[in-house]
C-alpha cells in the first residue's frame, strides 16, 4: 500500500501538489498553520493513494516522500 509523508515544516502551502494529485486526496489544510506560517499540504485518505508520486514530482520544496 502506498504511503505519503509530508515534511510539514518545509511546506509553503503553494498547492501545486493539490492540482497534481489524480485522486484529489492531497489538499491544503486550511484549519492550521505550520512553523513558517503557511497552511501545509496534507493527505485526506491514505488508503486511496495509488503511489503515483505526482504530488512529490510537482513539489518545489522537497516536502513529500512516497513509499509503496
Amino acid at each position, binding site marked *: 500500500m502506498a504511503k505519503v509523508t509530508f515534511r510539514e515544516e518545509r511546506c*509553503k502551502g*503553494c*498547492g*501545486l501538489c493539490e492540482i497534481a494529485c489524480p485522486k484529489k486526496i492531497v489538499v491544503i489544510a486550511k484549519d492550521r498553520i505550520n512553523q513558517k506560517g503557511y497552511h501545509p499540504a496534507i493527505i485526506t485518505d491514505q488508503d486511496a493513494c495509488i*503511489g503515483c508520486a505526482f504530488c512529490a514530482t*510537482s513539489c518545489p*520544496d*522537497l516536502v513529500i516522500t512516497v*513509499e*509503496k
Partner: protein
Amino acid sequence: MEVFKKTNGLTDAPFHYCPGCTHGIIHRLVAEVLEELGVLDRSIAIASVGCSVFSYNYFNCDAIQAAHGRAPAVATGAKRSMPDNIVFTYQGDGDLAAIGTAETVHAAARNENITVIFVNNAIYGMTGGQMAPTSLPNQVTQTSPYGRDVTLVGYPIKVSEMLSQVEGATYIERVAVDNVKNIKNAKKAIKKAFQNQIDKKGFSLIEVLSTCPTNWGKSPKDSLLWLEENMKKNYPLGVFKDRTKGDE
C-alpha cells in the same frame, strides 16, 4: 520501497524561493540527474545572480558564484582547467538574456563543453518584478505598468531560437515544468545535456519555462495556467538544435 525520496544531489537546506516558485523543481531535476549519472562528486555548479544566487547552498557539489551574467565565462575557465569535472551554470533570464548575453552567445560559438540551465520566467524576480528582455509583449510588470510596448522597448529575446543559429552550439532545447508530464520531459532534456558534456560533445543549453507567482501577481495555480496560455505561445517547446545525431 521508496517511490520518491529526496535526492542526495541537494543539501537539506530549505529553499528560500517564494511559495509555488518552480525554481525548486528545476533544482531537484538537475540534482537528480547529477546523482543518476554518478557525477555528483566531480560536479561544479556556477551560480548566477538573481533569485538563483543561493543555489550554491542547495546543490550538494562544489560551486562558484559568478559575477552577474558571467557564469558561462567562469564555467569556461573551470572546464578548461579541469576537463574531467562536470561544469554547469544555473542562470535566470535577467542574468543570461540581459547582462550575460555576450558570454552566453560566445560560449555557444566556441562550443564550450559545458551545460547551461536557463530558467526563463519572463520577469526580473529578485529585484522586484521589473520588465526583463524575455517579458512578453503587453506583459504588465513594475516597469511596464501599461504592458510591454514593443514599439518602445522592442520584442522579447528568444534565447533558444537565437542560439540555435549559432554554428558552434551542440544541443538546445526548451522545456517547461508546469505539469508532471512536462517535468518528466524536462528531466530527460537536462539528462541529455549533461550526457553530452560527459561524452565531450560540447555546449548544451536547456531553457526551462518557469513561473514567478509573486511578481506576476498570481496564485501559484494561476501562474501555471498563465505559463501554459501565454509563455508557451511565445516560447514554443521543443528541440531547437541537436548536433549529437551526426546529421549536421
